[in-house]
């Protein structure tokens, strides 16, 4: 059977499938989502109303035997930023949808009865909407446990927690990992609230016995995948012990924000260092694993409690920073509890950590009050007034507390990587259609000369957009050349590295066009005053002082492609 699109009408609770256009065969993930949103979603719509469109799109190579290639993009108009959003996640739903031949799911409309909950089922027998009131208000782990009672063990799920059901703008969409836990989140931008606004509690995908997608040039594809895997494994394997291992370097580089970003270094770097997590494997078990089938990077840690029982996965650098250091919470174990709570309630750990830090900074909670933070996350699920503010993110919390230091771009909280020591990354935060997002184009080079910021930012944004459209995880660090080779062998066409860069650039163009129509203005492409006025590092001298003209260059026109572009590694 040819590849299909699933169309879901939540107003009438109907589903239909249609052939996936041949002309789109090189579009997947983020680029596909952007194209569909630009064509089918009114950028001026209410993001939580019936006219918003939720797109679920695995990358082009998902479901194939290419290593680390099954990522999924979730797209829509963000209720957090008011602009376009793509949130990328691991776990198995991307692999499983593609094994069934479904290139994307497009969800529109809204049920008249807003109290009803529904599930979407996809398997070898087709696609159906089913009633799901029994799952209402369940936290993500409980929801997945119950789903595994109903669906075969071969299934994977996308679910929302109470935050998404309450339409909170910090809500995430969870994807189940290899072990069936709802740990991998399409977290940024509040897309969990969009799914909640459509009455959709879960998507269940059962690939059954479907095999991996077959490439056009089989022998060469398998040989290349084997050779690529071997070369990766012979290299430095930067993420072998997880992203949390970068804590000490980030701290040294003044990009480990402390107390709502008033400092770039934390006195608690040693107790938040991922090395402590790795040490815990010895006595408690846990360890490193792959969050989705076929991942050779295996950057995802499984964290156990002192009794050796599973607690959470994965405890990442971003989470240790935003829910740890940035809130002056010093213990990685407390952050592990907070991570689990965010996964349970269905919240973005970055946005939530930023919101809690703002509450603390404004005097609403003591710095470092880990137990208070845990209570607060339970309050999000209960829907208290303060809980709702926290669950709605940094801007909502700043408004509630009448607090001015709110480090966001286009309404989205900054990730850990700080734009004051890493100014080119700041150019990405300012110009990315997503708002402040390190996965849009991170540049950890504090010595980069200012005249190179715009081109460096644009190039990494192009490569990351291409990567997020391919299904590859950014941690595999593929280049445009790598992606072109895989696409060529998979499709049987001669796909060039230039075409791959063009896909990345066109994706950005589509996203910027959507945002322009949604009402964003050039002045929205900037960082907040607190980052321009307040410094970090020695004498607080590192400020974000990049002139507007340089920022504008990053999106105004495309820089002429140079050889380096095609060899630049995607990076997140």
């Amino acid at each position, binding site marked *: 059977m040819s590849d299909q699109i699933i169309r879901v009408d939540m107003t009438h609770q109907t589903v239909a499938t249609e052939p996936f256009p041949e002309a789109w065969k090189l579009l997947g993930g983020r680029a596909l989502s952007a194209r569909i949103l630009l064509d089918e979603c009114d950028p001026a719509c209410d993001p939580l109303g019936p006219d918003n469109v939720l797109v679920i799109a695995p990358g082009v190579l998902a479901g194939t035997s290419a290593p680390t290639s099954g990522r999924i993009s979730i797209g829509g108009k963000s209720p957090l930023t008011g602009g376009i959003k793509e949130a990328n996640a691991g776990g198995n739903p991307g692999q499983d949808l593609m094994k069934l031949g479904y290139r994307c799911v497009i969800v529109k409309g809204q049920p008249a009865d807003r109290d009803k909950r529904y599930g979407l089922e996809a398997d070898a027998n087709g696609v159906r909407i089913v009633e799901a009131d029994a799952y209402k208000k369940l936290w993500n782990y409980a929801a997945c446990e119950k789903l595994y009672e109903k669906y075969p063990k071969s299934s994977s799920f996308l679910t929302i927690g109470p935050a998404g059901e309450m339409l909170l703008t910090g809500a995430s969409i969870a994807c189940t990992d290899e072990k069936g836990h709802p740990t991998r989140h399409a977290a940024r931008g509040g897309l969990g609230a969009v799914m909640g606004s459509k009455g959709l509690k879960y998507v269940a995908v059962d690939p059954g016995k479907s095999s991996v997608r077959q490439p056009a040039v089989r022998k060469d594809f398998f040989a290349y995948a084997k050779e690529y895997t071997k070369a990766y494994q012979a290299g430095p394997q930067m993420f072998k012990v997880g992203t949390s291992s970068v804590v000490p370097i980030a701290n040294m580089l003044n990009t480990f924000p402390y107390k709502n970003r008033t400092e770039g270094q934390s006195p608690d770097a040693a107790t938040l260092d991922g090395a402590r997590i790795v040490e815990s494997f010895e006595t408690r078990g846990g360890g490193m694993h792959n969050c989705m089938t076929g991942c050779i990077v295996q950057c995802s840690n499984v964290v156990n409690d002192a009794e050796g029982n599973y607690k959470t996965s994965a405890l990442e650098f971003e989470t240790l920073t935003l829910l740890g250091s940035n809130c002056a919470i010093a213990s990685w174990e407390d952050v592990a509890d907070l991570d689990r709570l965010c996964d349970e309630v269905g919240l973005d750990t970055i946005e939530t950590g930023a919101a809690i830090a703002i509450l603390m900074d404004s005097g609403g909670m003591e710095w470092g009050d880990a137990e208070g933070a845990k209570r607060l996350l339970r309050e999000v699920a209960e829907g208290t007034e303060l809980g709702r503010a926290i669950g709605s993110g940094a801007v909502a919390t700043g408004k509630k507390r009448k607090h001015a230091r709110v480090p966001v771009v286009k309404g989205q909280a900054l990730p850990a990587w700080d734009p004051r020591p890493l100014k080119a990354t700041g150019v990405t935060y300012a110009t990315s259609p997503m708002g402040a997002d390190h996965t849009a184009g991170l540049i950890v080079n*504090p010595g*980069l000369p200012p005249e190179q910021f715009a081109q460096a930012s644009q190039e990494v944004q192009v490569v990351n957009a291409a990567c997020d459209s391919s299904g590859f995880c950014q941690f595999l660090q593929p280049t445009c050349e790598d992606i072109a080779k895989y696409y060529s062998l998979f499709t049987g066409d001669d796909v060039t590295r230039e075409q791959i860069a063009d896909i990345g650039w066109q994706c950005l163009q589509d996203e910027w066009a959507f945002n322009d129509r949604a009402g964003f203005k050039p002045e929205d492409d900037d960082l907040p005053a607190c980052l321009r006025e307040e410094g970090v590092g020695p004498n607080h001298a590192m400020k974000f002082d990049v002139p507007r003209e340089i920022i504008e260059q990053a999106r105004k026109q495309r820089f002429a492609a140079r050889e380096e572009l095609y060899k630049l590694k995607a990076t997140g």
Partner: protein
Amino acid sequence: MPTLAIPPPYRGPTGGAAEVEIPAGSVAACLDVVEARFPGFRAQIIDPVGRVHRFVKLFRNGDLLTGDVLAAPIGPGDRLEVLAAIAGGSGLR
């Protein structure tokens, strides 16, 4: 002349320089020379008690240095390379 290759995250003190020339001698002596030229560089490699940071690895002509890394000799024509266990912005910049 031996050279020191510097990964992007460590180029703050060198003002963006990716490679600098160093004299032959021990790794520690080479780092002293780089520090004199680019203050703040050595602290990125060596911790306050004088050991190489756990998260830094040094390679001489592609071979990982182990044992007493700071005493390892760097000869004329050698290439000393710093590897930072951090990704973002790797590749060519």
